[in-house]
């Protein structure tokens, strides 16, 4: 099988499609491969999902105790900011 049609290469291309515009030959190779490859098709959907989840992650990721400013840190910051 041609190198460009291997799942390993395709997975990398699918990832890159989130970082740069793919060339026409790359897009064609992807489309042909995806038509016949269920795992890469699943991976593509998962990449899209992770991409949209990540874009809104900061608003949704849990914030536990040690990810909040403690009272001491808050006090330190207040001191440093001082009266303006």
């Amino acid at each position, binding site marked *: *099988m041609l*190198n460009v049609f*291997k*799942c*390993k*290469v395709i*997975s*990398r291309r699918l*990832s*890159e499609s*989130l*970082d*740069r515009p793919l060339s026409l030959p790359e897009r064609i190779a992807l489309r042909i491969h995806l038509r016949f490859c*269920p*795992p*890469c098709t*699943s*991976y593509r*959907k*998962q*990449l899209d*999902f*992770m*991409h*949209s*989840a*990540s*874009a*809104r*992650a*900061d608003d*949704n*990721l*849990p*914030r536990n105790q*040690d*990810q*909040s*400013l403690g009272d001491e*840190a*808050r006090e*330190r*910051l*207040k001191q*440093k*900011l001082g009266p*303006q």
Partner: protein
Amino acid sequence: MSSPLPETRLGPSTGGEINWLDPEKWLDEHGDALYAYALRRVREASTAEDLVQETLLTAIKAKDTFRGESTERTWLTGILKHKVLDHFRQAARELPLPEVPPLSDSQQDWFDQSGNWLRWPGDWADPERSLEQDEFWHAMSDCIDRLPDKLRIPYILREFDGVETEELIRTLNISSRNNLWAMLSRARLQLRQCLEIKWFSN
């Protein structure tokens, strides 16, 4: 992050007054969120605290430039984003992120000798619904934290913050675009597997 939300817009819609900007309240209202944002990226409590401090000091100086086109939170986070990038730029000058070895040399490989998936990615049922579930975000947080720094940092800057390729390789002092794309691809493969185990297999 860049899109303003009109319904949460602060301050009066007319007049040039900016008296709703109150630095003393910033710490109370946004301190935790800013700190969590910084900590997620730099991991170190003292560094995160410093970045929040610099952000608030910068915001105080730049107070007059706030136009109420975004929420206070968005505005402050925008300043912090630049501080975080500055931090990584500085750190990468001193100690560049290590090069990522070719996939075949790494312990964890996803493909066999002929380039086929060792284990097929599973079918994720109704992933969109996950976004509304707190447990999903716990799994996501855990999986992000499990990425090694050399993959986690580029991933977060690219996918959380939308930093483009060129700026990213300059900021992190990465030798080539190709190397960056390899790191991002690896990060996504690892994150995928982790989410599948921790969330989608239940």
